[in-house]
């Protein structure tokens, strides 16, 4: 199945009943899939909104009503959604937001790029908040992480971003849909707006005029974010056991890196990979642990260097960090990346 369709199918299987979106390449197949599939789901709602602004605010309304809701877009449209992502965070409303990103800034192009890392992980909108950001690197992971996104959004009452790119959205791979996790404890939805029938009326708001109340709300969110950091950080290690050098890459770049590492290993280069699966929370602890053994890191991104900031912050100087980036929608081959690995490896006399 095609990546964009897989996200849609996984969302439906995770119980998503509401989708609003606006056309933008390279994610259109997802919008189209939701249009078709939600019409088959009882009480399913699909709206082609007049803008990304409208789409995310429709999702906000559906989320207030307690419905599992999703929107998707690509860079320029995600920029428009940022104000409301800030509101969703403030009002503690679950929502799933998919960014099948493209080359930027501006209109850029529609080729795969990882140029929205900062926007995704630094909030992008205004105010003191964090988003969970999931970075799949295969069609199978698109399915698994989309389902997980809905669970996380409900569990923590927070927006969850899925950061893919045009490559993941367009590629076709076999996929197996897990049964949506057997519901453990049903998530409490005692905050939803359904009409004050047999209970006191409820308010969902973000305006907190009293600074002491806003401060307490900010700390409350921080405590929630700390729980998320503690429990939900995901990272993959690849062939680190005997390595003297580690590449750090996510998403499509990580996939290319795997191929590059297998090539490099054919030449006896002892290199492995750390792949952050959650970009926020970032796997800082895992990187710190590995830095006790491995001291040389190569960060590879399809941008001009964004995640590298998080790698440096995680290492706090305990390791040497180099960068290789291809922005603008260029997808280097594993061969190209293996050459970069080899040149670093030999320059540093690691082998």
């Amino acid at each position: 199945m095609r990546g964009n369709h897989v996200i849609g199918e996984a969302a439906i299987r995770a119980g998503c009943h509401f989708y609003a979106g606006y056309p933008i390449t390279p994610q259109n197949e997802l919008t189209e899939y939701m249009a078709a599939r939600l019409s088959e789901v009882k009480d399913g709602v699909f709206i082609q909104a007049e803008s990304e602004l409208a789409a995310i605010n429709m999702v906000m309304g559906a989320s207030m009503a307690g419905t599992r809701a999703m929107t998707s877009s690509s860079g320029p449209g995600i920029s428009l959604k940022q104000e409301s992502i800030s509101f969703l965070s403030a009002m503690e409303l679950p929502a799933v937001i998919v960014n099948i990103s493209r080359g930027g800034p501006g209109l850029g192009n529609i080729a795969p790029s990882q140029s929205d890392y900062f926007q995704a992980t630094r909030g992008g909108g205004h105010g003191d908040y964090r988003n969970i950001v999931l970075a799949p690197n295969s069609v199978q992971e698109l399915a698994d992480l989309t389902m997980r996104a809905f669970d996380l959004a409900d569990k923590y009452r927070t927006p969850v971003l899925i950061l893919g790119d045009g490559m993941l959205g367009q590629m076709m791979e076999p996929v197996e849909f897990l049964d949506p996790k057997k519901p453990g404890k049903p998530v409490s939805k005692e905050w939803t707006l359904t009409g004050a029938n047999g209970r006191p009326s409820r308010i969902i708001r973000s305006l907190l005029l009293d600074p002491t109340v806003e401060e307490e709300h900010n700390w409350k969110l921080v405590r929630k974010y700390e729980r998320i950091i503690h429990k939900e950080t995901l990272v993959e290690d690849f062939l680190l056991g005997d390595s003297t050098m580690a590449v750090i890459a996510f998403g499509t770049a990580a996939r290319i890196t795997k191929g590059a590492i297998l090539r490099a290993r054919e030449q006896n280069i002892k290199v492995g990979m750390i792949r952050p699966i959650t970009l926020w929370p970032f796997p800082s602890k895992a990187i710190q642990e590995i830095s006790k053994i491995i001291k040389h890191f190569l960060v590879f991104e399809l941008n001009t260097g964004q995640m590298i900031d998080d790698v440096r912050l995680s290492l706090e100087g305990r390791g040497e960090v180099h960068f290789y980036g291809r922005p603008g929608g260029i997808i280097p081959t594993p061969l190209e990346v293996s050459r970069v690995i080899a040149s670093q490896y030999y320059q540093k006399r690691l082998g």
Partner: protein
Amino acid sequence: MKKVFSRPKSLKNNPFHYCPGCGHSILHRIIGEVIDEMGLQEIAIGVPPAGCAVLAYNYFDIDMGEAPHGRGAAVATGLKRALPNRLVFTYQGDGDIAAIGTAETIHAANRGENITAIFVNNAVYGMTGGQMAPTTLPGQKTTTSPGGRTEVAHGHPMNLSEMLALASGSVYIVRTAVSSTSNILKTKKAVAKAFQVQLSGMGFSLVEVLSPCGTNWKMIPTEACHWIEESMVKCYPLGVIKDITGGRKSAD
């Protein structure tokens, strides 16, 4: 002693923070009365705006969910589509609905979303301190049109309700005022009818209410009510703008 006047059940026992003579308090009360009389407290969900009425949820004793500035129609669309058998209404100022939120409003009306918008037209941005609004009258002085609004420099006053009447999905659009007892009673009837339109599943309804803002107009309350009836109504004539509840009728 027989009690002949009391607070509507669907208003909380909180004193309004609005300025003396402000139309929001009157309109809150009217909406509260309509919700009570139509028995809607348990199914009503309100969407307050960014604007003076952002704190409306402190007064209405119904479920309420805040929208970002101007996005009321989109948030209400999400709520109503998810919960089709509830009554969902937005409460928006002229800056909220006729400037930053124009696109959301026009498209919600055109899709025929089954929601009700209460549009409070006070011809200024009240909450942010009296700046020019799309609805500011020609010649009217505001903090951002200190010499008075001119068409050349600032554009024309915007008749959003008339524009919305052109949308095929809008069903009932009416303009009223809270400037006198009789206008207040007409406003109440209009709100009740708009809610009825929604409950019957007919489509988009909107009540525009010309509302005094003595503080930013720099007028005492009686002067402000006069100004509505002398000046505002010339630009924004009161009455039904569109009503196709009885079948198709032109938007005259």
